[in-house]
């Protein structure tokens, strides 16, 4: 007579269990954005790819999905995340100092297909806090300059005080033949740069719309306007890649929250090719 006994479920790390990571370095980017460099206390997560995110946990407060903004071929096991302090969790994360321990789950999601731009012009368009998830692409392009033709970075922010990575943008401008263009929606008269929406930078930007591959991140409405401007200039939807965002609770496709129609953003995204997602984006409140 067989007897069924229950073996205690092995205490292996489940998909919902964070790994401890220590804040190695912290840099303030502007009045409400910080970049944290995190190092594993013990076990590290799998190497993170461009476009992917981790769920960052502030002890006792909660978790949020944050994309990597690092130089992935150089960072090793260090995780680099640029975070805007807007809610309870992000404020707690941004309040962490060097030596403090946060929790990390991941990496989750899919990656930017950077090799789609091999032999072509590579265009990156960031809006607001959309620039950090794009930064790994720029680092990659700088490290593999010969793989690409022109590399163009277009960036729009709310005001000069809200811009991220200003010094880095200047350095990139020097290394990318001046093809780094920045604009803000509004400014005081001490700003000597461009004022106007980021889409205004597209008509004159130095890329061939017939062949260029574009990577766009920002608020959904900014991505829509930008896509329209790129398409008006002749870029086809199958050469525009975007990064989507929805409420996330688990990051592993088990909680249902990040659905957009048939797709699960944590599992099938957050990176999508525009032509594949376009029909869904056109349905309000989907």
């Amino acid at each position, binding site marked *: 007579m067989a007897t069924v006994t229950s073996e205690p479920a092995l205490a292996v790390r*489940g998909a919902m269990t964070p790994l401890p990571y220590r804040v190695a370095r912290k840099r303030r980017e502007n009045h409400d954005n910080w970049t944290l460099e995190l190092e594993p206390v013990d076990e590290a997560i799998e190497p993170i790819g461009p476009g992917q995110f981790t769920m960052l946990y502030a002890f006792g407060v909660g978790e949020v999905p944050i994309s990597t903004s690092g130089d992935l071929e150089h960072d090793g096991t260090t995780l680099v995340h640029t975070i805007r302090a807007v809610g309870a969790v992000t404020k707690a994360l941004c309040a962490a100092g060097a030596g403090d321990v946060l929790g990390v789950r991941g990496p989750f999601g899919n990656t930017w297909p950077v090799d789609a731009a091999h032999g072509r012009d590579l265009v990156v368009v960031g809006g607001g806090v959309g620039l950090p998830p794009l930064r790994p692409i720029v680092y990659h392009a700088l490290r593999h300059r010969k793989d690409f033709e022109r590399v163009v970075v277009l960036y729009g922010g709310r005001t000069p005080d809200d811009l991220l990575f200003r010094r880095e943008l200047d350095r990139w401008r020097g290394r990318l033949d001046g093809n780094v263009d920045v604009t803000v929606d509004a400014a005081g008269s001490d700003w000597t740069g461009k004022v106007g929406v980021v889409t205004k930078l597209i008509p004159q930007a130095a890329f061939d719309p017939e062949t260029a591959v574009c990577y766009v991140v920002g608020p959904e409405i900014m991505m829509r306007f930008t896509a329209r401007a790129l398409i008006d200039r002749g870029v086809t939807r199958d050469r525009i890649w975007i990064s989507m965002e929805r409420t996330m609770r688990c990051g592993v496709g088990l*909680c*249902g929250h990040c659905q957009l129609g048939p797709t699960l953003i944590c599992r099938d995204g957050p990176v999508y090719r525009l032509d594949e997602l376009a029909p869904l984006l056109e349905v309000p409140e989907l």
Partner: protein
Amino acid sequence: MASILQAGDLDSLFGALRDRGYRVVGPTVRDGAIVYAEIESAAALPGGWTDEQAPARYRLARRDDEAFFGYAVGPHSWKAELLPPSVRLWQARRENGGFAVEDEVTDTGPTAFLGVRPCELSAIAIQDRVFVGGEHQDADYAARRADAFLVAVDCGDPSELCFCTSVGGGPDAREGFDLALTELLEPEHRFLVRAGSPAGEDVLAGLPTTEATEDDHRAAAALTAVAAHEMEGRFDATDLHDLLLRNLESPSWDNVAERCLSCGNCTLVCPTCFCTHVTDTTSLDGATAERTRVWDTCFSLQYAEMHGGNTRPTTRARYRQWLTHKLATWQDQFDSIGCVGCGRCIAWCPVGIDIRDEVRAIRAEEETHAHA
């Protein structure tokens, strides 16, 4: 060949399961409904009870026989056992300048589910695909699932709301069970018992059964055939996936939104709905923290809340999300339809929204439009 277990010997099944270390969860009458709870013997079963169901209506009524399983389905489903409403995932403790995390170990123990309807077998299979069929598995679900012993019971009395045959199911248990029972009342009260796994065979071997005759088999087949026939034509699932995704802006959604209270009852009683969210809490002194997974509903206003807004602020959007997920996009995500045709969402909706009618309305609206 299957076996026959006399109704009077049903307690032997309880004994055999208990001897093997199982706690038995099965149907019982409580608070005017047939719910699932831990039960000790056949005496706790809803003998002689049936359910009368209609949109926004569920009542128990007495049968004129003593059938143990003479009802359709109640408000509970087996997801309460496999995906409990609240599960602590881990605890964490501050130490050494950081923190240490201790995963929770599932310790419910082996559990026998007695009285699993074929639609519920389908529902469990559907949730299996979600929780153990993907890239990331849910450790807690997997542990509970491995420890579960399923005793299915064929359906002889579908309710007015049942439509399992329209979504690929049927009143007879086909697979995914350890034991399957068909309750026969005439000429004597007995059960046809089939084993569906080695564990099931083991339990069956220890029961006081006799070999089933051809008459027994015929009676069992007739029972479920009649039940299937009763449910014929209750739901037109033709082209369901594409129909819904073609009509995301149908006026029918506005129509149902006027009636829907966004209460989430449907998601609570649905045997396949699985959305959860996690809560992170900390002790008052901040020394320990824990994460708990709790049931969530896509009908709640918070469900689609993001910084900077809400992607589904209207009832219309949330109802559409639920129904299109259940009947259409679930197929894209998990290779099967999400609905098993149990009718619970119809009975337990306070305003009696019937998803079959809603689909019919969308279809009709599309047709009207096409000819306009």
